[in-house]
């Protein structure tokens, strides 16, 4: 384990609020009204009965639960504001709820841009291995979601294969996805226990977390919620994300959209806290909008996304819930002007929103549908830039620099001053933004940032060797995958 290796995090000193206190309260009250009168659908009798016992109004026939306002508020208050997402290497542990913003890979992109051909195709487990190795080497990336869906295995084995690829190729925190049932979740928990060194060791240092997603409007699959409960019972944090799509699966107006997303998330969190009180979770309001012409996801990500990020952060703060939010949104297919502008603006929204423990969508393009290796490095560059600008301006005697201004005097220069050398490395330096002279740029055949990022990806993949798992642990993980496969074959 490399003691000197660190992860970078965003520390905030700026907060922009887009909602007034009154606006925030109206959204909150409307959300409680939705949960009380409309409720949410959860297709699990076990979970519905537990919610009924805790005060919810349950209709088993329609699979609907309606929550009294006090129940929602009481249960959401049980969710801890602070906890740890541990990593195989303790130097890489994430302290959630401490004001840090950690960059995370995104989850299960349906396609990948092939590094050799530049064409998109279905991703494989080998791709996830490579992407995880890359992220292990990039210090701006702190948290690993399985950034591509492993499509060369049976769907019910995706979760275990992804978790295996992640655990075996990085010492950073791993979030498991594609756990579509309690049984899938159990297999992942078993894998995490093997790597952590037992149930109690895992509970003390949860090196794996889960995340589950609602289906807009106002629906959770029962199996998915049971998987969340399975994680929580094992002591693994399990977050919720809602991707309700404005105009299609949520209202068109931003306020209504926020109410719908908020209701899905608070409903999910209240459910988890009812079944496993005190379970560590997070609030994941993912914005999505509908393209009015095509009916698909709006790929021209724009100002609504920015405003949504600011408002969502205010809601998370109001509930004192850790937040996971999309840091990047673009409809661009490649690393062009559109991608750069949209990724920069969306990340800036997250940066000034004053809240976001986990910042997702790193490495994605085309509406988060496609993963590209180069995007990880380019997004990391934007993150690094953003971290720097959030540091603000230091104003003390040393920084005011009177002595050096006096020493240089009129007509001199500051280049050779010790003060310059003492502080120049505080200035931000890009790795991929072009800074060649025009002549140098032409002599180098007009490289674009994406070309430089491409080269760097290849270097990292050629050189970087993540800390491997113990051989015996590795064998045990493969045995669990095998057992899960056989169980699947027996039970369908």
């Amino acid at each position, binding site marked *: 384990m490399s003691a000197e290796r660190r992860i970078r995090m965003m520390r905030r000193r700026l907060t922009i609020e887009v909602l007034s206190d009154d606006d925030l309260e109206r959204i909150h009250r409307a959300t409680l009204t939705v949960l009380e009168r409309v409720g949410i659908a959860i297709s699990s009798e076990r979970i519905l009965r537990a919610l009924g016992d805790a005060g919810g109004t349950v209709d088993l026939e329609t699979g609907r639960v309606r929550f009294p306002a006090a129940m929602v508020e009481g249960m959401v208050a049980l969710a801890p504001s602070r906890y740890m997402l541990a990593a195989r290497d303790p130097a890489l542990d994430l302290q959630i709820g401490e004001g840090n913003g950690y960059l995370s890979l995104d989850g299960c992109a349906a396609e990948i841009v092939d590094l050799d051909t530049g064409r998109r195709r279905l991703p494989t487990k080998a791709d996830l291995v490579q992407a995880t190795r890359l992220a292990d080497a990039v210090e701006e990336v702190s948290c690993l979601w399985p950034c591509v869906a492993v499509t060369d295995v049976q769907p019910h084995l995706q979760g275990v294969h992804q978790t295996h690829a992640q655990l075996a190729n990085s010492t950073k925190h791993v979030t498991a996805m594609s756990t579509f049932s309690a049984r899938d979740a159990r297999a992942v928990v078993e894998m995490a226990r093997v790597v952590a060194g037992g149930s109690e060791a895992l509970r003390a240092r949860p090196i794996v977390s889960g995340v589950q997603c609602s289906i807009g409007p106002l629906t959770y699959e029962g199996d998915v919620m049971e998987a969340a409960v399975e994680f929580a019972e094992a002591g693994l944090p399990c977050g919720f994300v809602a991707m309700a799509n404005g105009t299609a699966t949520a209202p068109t107006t931003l306020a209504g959209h926020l109410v719908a997303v908020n209701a899905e998330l608070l409903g999910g969190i209240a459910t988890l806290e009812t079944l496993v009180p005190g379970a560590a979770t997070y609030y994941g309001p993912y914005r999505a909008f509908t393209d009015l012409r095509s009916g698909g996801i709006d790929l021209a990500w724009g100002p609504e996304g920015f405003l949504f990020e600011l408002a969502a952060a205010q809601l998370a703060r109001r509930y004192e819930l850790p937040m996971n939010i999309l840091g990047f949104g673009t409809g661009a297919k490649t690393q062009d002007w559109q991608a750069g502008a949209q990724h920069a603006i969306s990340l800036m929204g997250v940066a000034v929103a004053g809240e976001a423990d986990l910042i997702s969508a790193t490495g994605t393009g085309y509406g988060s549908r496609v993963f590209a290796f180069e995007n990880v490095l380019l997004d990391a560059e934007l993150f690094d830039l953003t971290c720097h600008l959030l540091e603000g301006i230091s104003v003390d005697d040393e920084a005011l620099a009177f002595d050096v201004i006096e020493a240089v005097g009129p*007509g001199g*220069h500051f*280049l*050779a001053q*010790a003060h310059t*050398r003492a502080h*120049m490395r505080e200035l931000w330096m890009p790795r991929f933004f072009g800074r060649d*002279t025009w*002549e*140098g740029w032409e002599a180098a055949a007009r490289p674009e940032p994406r070309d430089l990022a491409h080269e760097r990806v290849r270097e990292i993949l050629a050189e970087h060797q993540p800390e491997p798992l113990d051989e015996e642990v590795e064998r045990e993980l493969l045995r669990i995958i095998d057992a899960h496969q056989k169980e699947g074959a027996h039970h369908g």
Partner: protein
Amino acid sequence: MDDRIAALREALITLDEETAVAVTNELIDGGTDPQAVMQGGLAETMLEIGRRWTAGDMFLPEVVAAAEIFKRCNDIVEPALLAAGGKVLGHKVLTATVKGDLHDLGKNMVGAMLKTAGFEVVDLGKDVPTETIVEAVREMEPTILGLSSLLTTTVPEQRNVIQALDAAGLRRGVKIMVGGAPVTQEWAVEIGADGFAPSAPEAVELALRLAGDERLAKA
């Protein structure tokens, strides 16, 4: 290696000006071969600083600071070197900001970077009259003359200098490189200069090429 030469190298590379000057004085006063001080102490260290700049470990302000320290040390070593009948090393580059222009920072950066590539740099300063430049070329016989101007209003002076050198019969004996914000390759060609570089590091590559230095292989 002499411990004090090693101390000089260390002081120069860590930009410890007072120590560098003190050790240089000690060495020369103590009778150390000035050639050894120049080559082993100063010139090789400047080359090492150039290597560190190339590797991204040192930045231009550090190179400029090193060049300023180098100059102070050189002022101590050079008289002893010449008195001992030694030769100054490397190709000589004469630099000047042309008449009417007080902006000499870019030219100074070029000079600093050139020193890290082993060039001996003699700087005539700023607002230098054409006649002064011509006389200096006659006396010092530099391999390269570097002419700088920042302003669109002073850049025509570069042409005047070249024409004056031509008239004095000195043009063929010196390579001329021009630079400054308004200068382009097209301008350099138009006025009959031998080359142009858009930044201090690129000026080093140009100077190596103009001097016919084999290290050019890099570019």
